[in-house]
């Protein structure tokens, strides 16, 4: 199916182009610039002008953008104004892996907790258990991630001392240590998705349980657990996958706050700091990466969805 794939690659390129233009224009329009931040209170006109020209910020916008795009496509992602760090190394080698590990760990946790909660509240519909399971699940995403993170830090980090509250150990280097360090941040990020997964599971399970093939399975003498967890859940996976695909974009929103609170040098932190410093080259690299991530995740979700739904599987 190469042409479908090519079309999608084309689409991705266009989406990322649109994203890069938008972020460039936004940051240029926003008052303030990296240089005034670099000088802080030691601001003086001539150092400001020197740095401003040295960084090429005085060139017309169009020129700045096209040079950036030209370099970006050829792999030269430029250097950050404030730290003069190579952006490709910073974004791809350092920030991206951190966010990916965090997101993966959080998604696993969210699924492990969210799905059972959803099933429970569906099976015990409109009873106190449904209300409290939905309540607890939804409660998870009722608090902003930064607040939840701080509470977890003080309770589990400082109070009980079970988990480290700071910093990042690469799981690919030292898996156990790495996961141990990522536990609290992953819980913080997962909290948002637990509520969502529980709700979607509940809704689609209720919908699926209404179908005759469930009745037919029971009529064949299948036990309740097998009917729910095999026959019903297999059909719940499809709507669950689509919703998660759509929601994964929000993962970065949570990641931004989680990474700041836990001092994790991830993509979210990088983009936020760069936006505050008006470093448009870093923001664009970050947003392009998150855009790419978003599109790749959607492609993956589409493929997963096609595989999950037999009707589509045979067509693809």
């Amino acid at each position, binding site marked *: 199916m190469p042409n479908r794939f090519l079309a999608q690659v084309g689409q991705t390129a266009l989406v990322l182009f649109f994203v890069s233009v938008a972020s460039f224009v936004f940051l240029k329009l926003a008052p303030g610039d990296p240089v005034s931040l670099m000088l802080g209170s030691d601001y003086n006109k001539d150092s400001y002008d020197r740095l401003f020209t040295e960084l090429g910020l005085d060139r017309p916008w169009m020129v700045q953008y096209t040079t950036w795009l030209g370099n970006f496509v050829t792999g030269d992602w430029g250097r950050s104004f404030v730290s003069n760090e190579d952006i490709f190394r910073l974004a791809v080698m350092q920030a991206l892996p951190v966010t990916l590990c965090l997101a993966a760990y959080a998604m696993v946790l969210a699924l492990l907790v969210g799905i059972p909660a959803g099933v429970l509240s569906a099976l015990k519909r409109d009873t106190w258990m449904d209300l409290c399971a939905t309540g607890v699940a939804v409660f998870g995403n009722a608090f902003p991630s930064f607040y939840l993170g701080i509470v977890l830090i003080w309770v589990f980090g400082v109070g009980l001392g079970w988990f480290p509250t700071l910093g990042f150990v690469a799981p690919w280097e030292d898996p156990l240590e790495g996961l141990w360090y990522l536990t609290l941040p992953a819980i913080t990020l997962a909290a948002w998705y637990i509520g969502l997964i529980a709700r979607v599971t509940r809704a689609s399970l209720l919908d699926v349980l209404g*179908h*005759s*093939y469930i*009745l*037919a*399975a*029971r*009529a*064949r*003498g*299948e*036990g309740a657990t097998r009917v729910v967890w095999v*026959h019903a859940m*297999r*059909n719940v996976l499809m709507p669950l996958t689509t919703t998660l695909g759509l929601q994964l974009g929000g993962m970065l929103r949570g990641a931004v706050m989680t990474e700041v609170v836990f001092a994790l040098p991830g993509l979210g932190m990088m983009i936020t700091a760069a936006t505050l410093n008006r470093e448009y080259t870093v923001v664009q690299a970050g947003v392009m990466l998150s855009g790419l991530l978003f599109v790749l995740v959607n492609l993956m979700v589409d493929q997963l969805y096609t595989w*999950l*739904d*037999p*009707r589509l599987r*045979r067509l693809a």
Partner: protein
Amino acid sequence: MDHPAVAEEDVPLLSLQAFSLARGKVDVLDNVAFELGRGQTIGLIGESGAGKSTIALAIIGLLRPPEVALRGSIRFDGVELTGLAEAQYRQLRGNRIGLVFQDATAALNPCFTVGAQLAEPLSRHLGLRGNERRQRSIELLESVGIGEAALRLDAFPHELSGGMQQRVMIAMALACDPQLLIADEPTSALDVTIQAQIMELILERVRARSASAIFVLHDLALAAQVCDRVVVLYAGQVVEVAPAGELFAAPRHPYTRALRACSIELGQEQVLAPIPGSVPGLEDLPAGCRFAPRCDRASAQCAQTPPLVSDGIRSVACWHA
């Protein structure tokens, strides 16, 4: 639990006595009673909403407390079903009692292959595994007239035609040689040409096993051809029970007569007489005879519920029958 020891001829395989079913405040079934002998077929007739399917689901135990409230008794092969523990009931379903659904397309799980769903009763009730089970599945599909059965096993439901799906349903229901087959309007979702074939197939398979069968139908003429006896239901109450031929020839209850009047007969010139009004909603059931509002012979007496009077062969519940 295998077959019970005592299997005399005269003890009916299935008997419902004063069986009532209420969902919340609504009495869906009121005082239903009929019997089904071994090797016999019985038809449940009535307009939609009369509770035919409810009886079918109640018998196989898919409608049980706490969802619904049951009164009276259902005895199957000497066993009282209303109070049966779920674990025992589960061993009956698909094993001793088979159910064929009306719309096979909806009753087959879209995400599993035909083979996977067919294999379930075989492994659960008969403990068949692996190749033996696959062989048995192929035989079953062939027995319901499905060609290249081996291929069909690995197909998904959406890849089969409506008729084929219905055949798979039947194969599934008959997989463990049940003593009782319940077919809930097995052909109404199919186009006419296939209906006859499927109905013929079910009858032939049931007789081959000398099993009993309950057909839920809404076509009196079809019931007459297919069933030994017919039970006529109206708004959850049994209004008449009789051998199929007699009922068709000489319906006694006004409702059965009205049903008879609006079923088309080939070669007969007749003016169709639709029954005025429609089945009352289960919430606002009239006291006494529930057909009274639509009955041309209704009288003051109908305010009390007419008892089901039997003369040994037939029974009817109407003051003026």
